[in-house]
């Protein structure tokens, strides 16, 4: 690990100021990602500002408008506390399931909600500093494009990077239409819809998201919805736990009588950002919740997928995962 300066922030303002003032400074939250990357020499900050003592951990219910409510989860809330909070379990079981399907209990106890959003890709070339990687070293080339890319993207990739975003939690947040609240140097808060928070790689894969240097994630707002009872997070991986997704699907269906009022589908393990399956969603609105319609929706969505040499299976797996997630969302089968 390279030598670095460490300090603990006492208040939000000074934390932001310190990181904004030094382009090589980073926030330290749970440390489950940044410290690993520093040990691997992938991240090389010269200053870490520990934000874990800031009071940004709670889960709060608030009103937006007259009848609509939303819940805010703190940027520094622990992943496990968030997943197990009664308000989240009751109103957003999709988010609970997604968080609990990631990492291990120990890691979730350390990991924070803000850190989860900003965790970096698990592309193993990115982690291996002896290999070319545009995300780590812009201009050095993408090793995965023509290398081993079984775990990589089938949507939205560019010649410069084919990595996927590893988070499970963010996939659920996308299906839930969350917004990320961030605070910057001027003390002003701004809100970024989660779908616009992460980026596609284009020709700048070194930039994962639209957060500016020094901006701190203070909270994530999740609007109330009508599909809490009809939602499911499905994660398919190479072993039963403690592995990143081959493909994952967050699904929610709002049903009115016999017809689908609203469909929310997001996918993980398929793109540089959590992938909103907008085409499938559109297809399902107004249709009946049947296996045939799910299949057709999955076909519509995966039609646009563009696989690499080793991940062609993600297309078929993606289709089947969409169908299964929708089925389980309805039957609410937790098995």
């Amino acid at each position, binding site marked *: 690990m390279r030598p670095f300066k460490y300090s603990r922030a006492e208040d939000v303002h000074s934390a932001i100021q310190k990181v904004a003032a030094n382009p090589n400074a980073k926030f330290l939250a749970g440390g489950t990602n940044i410290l690993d990357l520093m040990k691997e020499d992938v991240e090389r900050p010269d200053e870490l500002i520990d934000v874990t003592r800031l009071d940004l951990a709670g889960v709060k219910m608030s009103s937006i408008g007259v009848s609509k409510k939303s819940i805010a989860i703190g940027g520094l809330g622990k992943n496990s506390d968030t997943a197990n909070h009664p308000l989240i379990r009751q109103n957003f079981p999709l988010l609970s399931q997604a968080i609990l399907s990631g990492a291990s209990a120990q890691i979730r106890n350390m990991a924070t909600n803000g850190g989860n959003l900003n965790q970096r890709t698990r592309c193993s070339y990115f982690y291996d500093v002896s290999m070319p990687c545009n995300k780590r070293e812009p201009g050095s080339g993408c090793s995965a494009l*023509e290398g*081993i890319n079984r775990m990589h993207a089938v949507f939205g990739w560019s010649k410069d990077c084919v990595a996927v975003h590893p988070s499970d939690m963010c996939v659920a947040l996308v299906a839930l239409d969350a917004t990320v609240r961030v605070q910057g140097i001027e003390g002003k808060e701004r809100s970024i819809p989660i779908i616009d928070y992460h980026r596609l790689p284009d020709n700048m894969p070194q930039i994962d998201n639209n957060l500016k240097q020094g901006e701190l994630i203070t909270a994530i707002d999740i609007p109330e919805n009508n599909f809490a009872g009809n939602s499911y997070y499905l994660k398919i991986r190479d*072993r039963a*736990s*403690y592995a990143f997704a081959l493909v994952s699907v967050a699904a929610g269906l709002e049903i009115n009588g016999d017809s689908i009022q609203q469909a929310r589908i997001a996918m993980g393990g398929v793109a540089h950002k959590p992938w909103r399956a907008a085409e499938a969603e559109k297809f399902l609105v107004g249709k009946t919740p049947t296996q045939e319609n799910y299949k057709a929706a999955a076909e519509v969505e995966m039609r646009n997928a563009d696989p690499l040499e080793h991940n062609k*299976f993600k297309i078929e797996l993606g289709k089947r995962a969409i169908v299964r997630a929708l089925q389980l969302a309805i039957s609410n089968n937790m098995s």
Partner: protein
Amino acid sequence: MREKHKIIGSPVSRIEGHLKVTGKAAYAAEFSFPHLMYGFPVQSTITAGEIKSIDVIAAERSPGVLKIITHHNALKLMPRPPVTHANRMTRSNPVLQNTRIHCFGQYIGLVVAETYEQARFAARLVKVSYKTERPKIDFDENLKDAYKPEILNAGHPTDTSWGDLESGLKQSAEILSETYNTPIEQHNPMEPHATIAFFEGERLTVYESTQILGTTKEAIANTFNIPKENIQVLAPFIGGGFGSKLQPREHLMLTVMAAKMLNRPVKTAITRQMMQTNVGLRQHNRQKVRIGTEKDGKLLALSHEIVTHTSVDEEFIEQSGAISRMMYEVPNSLVTHRVFTTNIQVPRWTRAPGETPGSFALESAMDEMAHRLKIDPIEFRTKNEPSVNPENKKPWASRSVIECMRMGAEKFGWNMRNSEPMSTRNGRWLVGYGMASASRGAPCREASARVKITNSNKNIRARIELAATDIGTGSYTIIAQVAAERLGLPVEKIKVIIGDSDLPPTPGSGGSWGAGTYTNAVDAVCEKAKNELLGKSKIKFVNEPGITELMKAAALNEYQTEGSVKPSEESEKYSHFSFGAHFAEVWVDESLGIVKIPRFTSAIAAGTILNEKTARSQIISGVVWGIGQALTEESVLDKRYGNYVTRTFADYHVPVNLDIGNIEVYFLHEEDKTINRLGVKGVGELGITSVAATIANAIFNATGKRIRDLPITPDKLLL
């Protein structure tokens, strides 16, 4: 006829267990010395070529750095003689002697610093430029260069044949010809390799996580040209080895070199990432199996033809076809091994080398054939049971594989199996049953031991000393049990001292010989002590006396003797193998390809079971690794660069708790009268053998899909 055992066999808990669970058992990297320095290897970032230059200026200036050793300033070491079966573990292993790079991650230097962190940081500051060559990595691209090696690991012959395979196939009513692939697998014992070394004058002390003390000492002596007598190797506790700690590795030689150059103690503990690149691996085996049978299932022909890779730096070939030479009676047989060189690191013994990949091919093929013949897989195997070892015509000392299959079938509920694939469902899960039979060679080797008996205030205690290792298997405990049994003392009165190369020599732990070899030496030396004391005694005993009576009769407060024992000439006349049968129930998600193994049953016949608890742990752990082999484990290399894409535990998937269901182990009562005094055959490697085939067979029964390329990940079950 031997008397019935009271202590041998009983499930005594590990006598060192409390030390381990309280963190008091010190492993190689956990010893501390004044002025201890830390070594961190510098690794090659290319896979084939030459080092052009190494720039250490920045690294040398880094805080805490004491020395940077590269080929420029390395001590001159003894040249390496060509490898033979006999010298593989002991020959000189000269590191940093030239600029040649033959594999990715090869150690090309060592940074020595005051702290581990300083050494690791400075290692990154070493700038190396290379002349890069295109590495030989890809299996298919290099296959054309396969040649016939002279000999395989452990002296197994390269090719064997009897009868005439082709005409056997021609006569056959049913023929199967399939190819099976088992991928590169990696060693990952709980404790990564580590060394501490220091000189005191001419004397060298080494703490090393090693399976064998004696060969480690010899290899150091041969590498540095130091008399063996001046070297002491200590390994009181070892956190698993599985073959990766049989041969003294390069980190050890780097550490000894640094200790010598700086004349201070040096510690080098390698990282998990280096476990992927520097401690050996199980090679990819491509295995073509052909089976021909009569209509009734009698085997007429069996061939097992293997191609695999070795390193450009050393030839090592596991005996993957050996199992097909001894498992079934067949009049026409052909088993061959071919190998080509690559820039992948040298393969190494990996739990049941040969049997683990070989059994996947053979036992999958047997299952495929049974299905075609519409014969129950157990019946098919039973029909082809050999009365003597087909390879050398030696009689079996003991072979209870049919009994294992029967017992396992009964305990598992094999009769509930529907032989028609895809016929059992549970919701969206397809349920399948599979089985395979297992075998593993049961070697026993020469070893020695010392017993010291003390009598203080009528408190008789014994101390057993031998240069054995406990690699997590339970050596401490079984040694204590055998001594207690033989001396007539409770286990608590036995002190076991092992893990020190200055003690009476043994061949260490490996190849499943450890348990039988150690305990027979201990058994023999205890008997020797008793006989010698009986000779000194003036009393005539009516019943066989214990050590307490003997010490009293001889009026001694202290007595010690040493002895050794080696396999008898009689035992050479027989074939010695452990046997077993595995059964698995699998559930496969029909649409998503996810596999669960809710239960697994193993029936094991391995002669005398010294301790039911530790033996059971051995089998369970073998089954767990077998499940990894079947479902998750595979090292993937990028053929352009030769790097490991699966470079950490995040990408190289070993099974986690949730992947493991209920594993039941049953031991058959079996007596082996020739293998050794106690009739011990060893269970360390039997557990993993044929597990992958068992699971693949069950997956076929569940889904009708036959997967011949491991591991069976969800994507392979989609189509």
